[in-house]
């Protein structure tokens, strides 16, 4: 596995299953009394969040702490420095502090890649969501949750049918999920109004549809996406009521789902808009399992990136003066 986790494309199919298997073993270990593992003692993990987040930041923080790493939360909110400069300054500060991993969430697509490629830091970079690009750990925890519900797909998702419904255009969760689900062998259908499908979706290798009712009886997994009002600067659909009627998961559609199927949502949910309260709380909903599994997946990723020898172990950290002169 590469030093960074920026995109699902950084992982081979075997590496992706390796992370899921590691999370599975971690679940068994921490299910009992082994709540705290000494594995990353002395490592420093920085949460660098330029965008608001509760569950992802807390999930990463909890994962790092359960592996005994030191966690620094760096909230960049309110920074008025232009993007490139601020990211560079911040990165150099983190390097000087001796960070072993930087978990970055940023509003600009490609921010994590920039941080990793810049040469500003030696730390491993983990993408926790960059703009409308990717959110790889979310896709991994979703795949893990799916596998827990369908043990027959433990070694391959060949034959698994997944529908991803809603705001595909703005969703980094959808992008990472499409990449990972296809990599693992699943068959993916995207359901959205034409205005919320990205340009070039034909090249993604997935099916698209506007008819929720036709697709829903044929899927094992229905993944609802949040309508991201904060990224919608234009009107993408006539009204919330009409969106909800065409693409919302209400109790009528819930009944159309096959018996064993599951309902997923990355959160936070707009109850009543893309998902009804009844669907969100039904026995088919695995939303809370997704949150719990997030910690395990992030522990597995941190272990894979930091558990062994890292760049910082080989070449000692450069003196601060030297970095500053560059």
């Amino acid at each position, binding site marked *: 596995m590469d030093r960074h986790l920026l995109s699902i494309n950084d992982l081979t199919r075997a590496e992706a299953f390796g992370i899921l298997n590691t999370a599975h073993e971690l679940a068994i270990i921490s299910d009992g009394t082994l709540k705290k593992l000494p594995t990353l003692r002395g490592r420093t993990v920085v949460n660098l969040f330029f965008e608001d987040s509760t569950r992802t930041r807390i999930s990463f923080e909890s994962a790092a702490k359960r592996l005994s790493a030191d966690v620094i939360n760096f909230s960049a909110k309110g920074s008025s420095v232009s993007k490139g400069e601020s990211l560079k300054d911040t990165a150099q500060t983190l390097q000087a502090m001796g960070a072993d991993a930087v978990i970055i969430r940023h509003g600009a697509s490609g921010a994590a890649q920039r941080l990793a490629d810049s040469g500003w830091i030696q730390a491993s970079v983990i993408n926790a969501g960059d703009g409308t690009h990717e959110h790889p750990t979310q896709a991994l925890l979703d795949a893990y949750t799916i596998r827990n519900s369908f043990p027959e797909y433990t070694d391959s998702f060949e034959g698994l049918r997944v529908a991803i419904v809603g705001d595909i255009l703005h969703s980094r969760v959808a992008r990472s999920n499409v990449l990972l689900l296809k990599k693992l062998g699943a068959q993916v259908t995207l359901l959205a109004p034409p205005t919320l499908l990205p340009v070039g979706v034909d090249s993604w290798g997935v099916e698209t549809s506007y008819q929720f009712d036709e697709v829903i009886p044929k899927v094992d997994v229905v993944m609802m996406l949040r309508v991201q009002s904060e990224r919608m600067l234009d009107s993408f659909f006539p009204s919330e009521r009409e969106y909800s009627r065409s693409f919302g998961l209400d109790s009528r559609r819930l009944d159309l789902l096959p018996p064993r199927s599951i309902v997923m949502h990355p959160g936070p949910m707009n109850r009543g808009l893309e998902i009804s309260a009844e669907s969100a709380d039904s026995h088919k909903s695995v939303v809370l399992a997704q949150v719990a599994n997030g910690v395990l997946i992030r522990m597995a990723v941190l272990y894979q990136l930091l558990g062994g*020898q*890292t760049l910082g172990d080989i070449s000692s950290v450069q003196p601060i003066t030297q970095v500053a002169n560059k």
Partner: protein
Amino acid sequence: MASLLDAGDIGRALKRIAHEIVERNHGLESVVIIGIPTRGDYLAKRIAKVLSEIESPVPVGTLDITMFRDDLRLRAPRPLLPTSLPSGGIEGKCVVLVDDVLFSGRTIRAALDALGEIGRPKSVQLAVLVDRGHRELPIRADFVGKNIPTSANESVKVNLTEIDDEDSVLLIPEVSGEHNG
């Protein structure tokens, strides 16, 4: 490549270790057997089988100690192996750790750390099929299948039919690579 133990030797050694465990603990009342994956786990199950034949059934568990190793930073991350602890736990029990080869003692140190996180056993004993010397820590085994003096650059390979072709212990000369702790 010299053969140190054959299938018959391994069977007899495990039988003797089982009898010694019963003798040392005056029965099996609070004994729990815990194997260290991969081959220690199979040996633990074999010892438990002998114990159930000669005395009574005992709880058996598996403990992966990867996350507790002190040499994690010296190589690439290893995949985790299954862990399953007996439902009765280890609190107040006489835990018998089982591994295939005792070498540096670092695996056992990691196992003791892991056990310390799980609970407080009344005592911890160690059973190994082969003790090859070269300890780097003050750790010794309570039950030893066979003491085999080796040189540090030799390697001891334990084969078990559960995952290998045969039951055997081989001495492989001058090999760098996998070290059994």
